[in-house]
């Protein structure tokens, strides 16, 4: 395990140096890798560890993005603080959804339905509220500065995204080895059994969804201040929710490194196919490919690529 941490440290050091040698475009790809790995990790806390599938995580991304942006536009509040406000709001919404779902023992499919519906309603509300820019979305004025979380060039964004990712990795690792994390896994594996030995399942599932939605919203704020434009179809659509879940599923749900591995594996091909296929006039095709990849992974690698990777690397990290 010591060797493993050393290895991770080396990788982190390499990633910290990378912006000096990368072009702006390559950095953009890395930002996307980190960003989606981060969102995947947040989703992983809820779904990977407790087994309750959320298909509405774009809702929290949207809440984070819209709250921080609206506060910045109305009161000139720094996105760094807006981020926390968005996170708290998302926690509230997430806790409400969790309460609806968990309080009445609605498991499996019911929970998925609730998350989809709330995601869809969030999108509809953003689409129709004038103050949220309705379908045109919100445009953010570009005034670079640390306090505004807006920068020229991609390097600062690179470091923020990397920071978020490392933060999420530490949180999930700490969670995994803690009592909490063990309870969550117990709930995932057999909820009734967990309850019968005295685990307060409702409490721990609520904690998981609150933490997950809080962290997801932070990512939303970051994204808003990088793209400078928010629209319901970009940040709150079903497509966004699918982007979020794809990476941890491919990497391996319920593992600390799964979302990261998944993100490194598919982000670049995905971005490349998206750009290429849009150029040749087939804008939906990359999503069709996503669909088939998702089915293929469930059929043939239901645990993701992590088990293979672990087996491969085990001799080195004993």
């Amino acid at each position, binding site marked *: 395990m010591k060797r493993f941490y050393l290895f991770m440290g080396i990788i982190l050091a390499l990633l910290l140096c990378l912006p000096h040698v990368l072009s702006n475009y390559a950095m953009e790809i890395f930002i996307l890798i980190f960003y989606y790995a981060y969102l995947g990790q947040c989703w992983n806390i809820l779904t990977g560890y407790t087994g309750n599938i959320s298909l509405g995580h774009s809702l929290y991304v949207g809440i984070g993005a819209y709250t921080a942006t609206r506060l910045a536009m109305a009161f000139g509040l720094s996105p760094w603080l807006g981020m926390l406000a968005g996170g708290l709001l998302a926690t509230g919404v997430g806790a409400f959804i969790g309460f609806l779902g968990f309080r009445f023992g609605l498991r499996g499919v*019911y929970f998925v339905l609730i998350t989809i519906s709330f995601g869809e309603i969030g999108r509809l509300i953003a689409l129709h509220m004038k103050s949220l820019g309705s379908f045109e979305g919100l445009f953010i004025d570009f005034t670079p500065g640390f306090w505004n979380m807006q920068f020229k060039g991609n390097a600062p964004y690179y470091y923020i995204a990397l920071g978020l990712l490392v933060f999420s990795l530490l949180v999930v690792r700490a969670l995994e080895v803690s009592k909490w994390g063990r309870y969550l896994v117990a709930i995932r594996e057999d909820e009734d059994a967990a309850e019968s030995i005295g685990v307060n399942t409702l409490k721990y599932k609520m904690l998981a969804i609150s933490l997950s939605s809080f962290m997801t919203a932070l990512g939303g704020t970051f994204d808003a201040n990088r793209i400078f434009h928010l629209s319901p179809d970009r940040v709150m659509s079903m497509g966004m929710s699918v982007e979020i879940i794809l990476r941890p599923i491919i990497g391996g749900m319920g593992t600390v490194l799964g979302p990261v591995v998944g993100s490194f594996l598919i982000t670049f091909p995905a971005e490349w196919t998206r750009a290429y296929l849009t150029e040749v006039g087939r804008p939906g095709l990359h999503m069709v490919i996503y669909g088939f990849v998702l089915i293929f992974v469930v059929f043939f690698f239901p645990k993701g690529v992590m088990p293979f990777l672990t087996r491969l690397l085990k001799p080195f990290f004993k």
Partner: protein
Amino acid sequence: MDPYLVLQLALQGFLMGGVYSLIALGLSLIFGVMRVINFAHGEMMVFAMFISITLLQWLGIDPFFSFVMCAVFMFGVGYAVQMVFVNRILVLKEAMQVLVLVGLAIIFENTTLMIWGGSDLSPKTSLALASIRLGPVSIDVARLVVFILSILITLLVLLFLRKTDIGKSIRAAADNRLGALIVGTPINRVYAICFGIGSACVGAAGALLVPLMPAKATMGAPFTVVSFVIVILGGMGSLSGALIGGLIIGVAESLGTVFLPSSMKQVVSFSIMVIILLFKPQGLFGGKG
């Protein structure tokens, strides 16, 4: 508030509810028999909608007739989907099943987007502007015909499940998978037929919606959500629940437009779902839950 307006809206919603019932019937049937939620439901409906539009534009066949072709075609699609994908996932964990069906939903939606593009299509059908006046309220003829056809199809499907041999094996498989296997039911085929019928319902519903609203490739997800709401309201797996739930949701959404913009009418059905989940999660007619 104008009472006639309310009456008019309630009536329109009631007629729209017929189509909702048909959509939800497909979902409820598939869930009731295989315990699988078809997340691709709305997307399949939009796919059928566009097929019906193409039939109208190329061959001039009105949706009031082409719904039969759409239903047959979607039966084939559903049969294939069950055989290729869904039969393999029935033994998996619920979570994994969801992912495969979401994958199918993405495939359907974006195939539609690729073939027909992302813009609104609302072709002219016959009966487009005809209406009957009944005292203070008026009824679109198209809406009325669609309502009658939807209810007829729904009743036919219910009858089919009660009376025919295939219908009986479907119900047997729903009741007790192992038992049905023991008495020699070819369960995979029965499942495929069942998914086919569910898809045919949604195919017919898609074609029947063409005269009522513009079609857009990306509008599937809201329909999936609405049919979930109806099924939850009526009770998971209860077929008559789907019928009545559809009518209730139709009226509720339509009345919601009195105080909400019409594109936000789903907020109403969604609130109904939250209330149902809070107080009666097994639905109005659901025994099995």
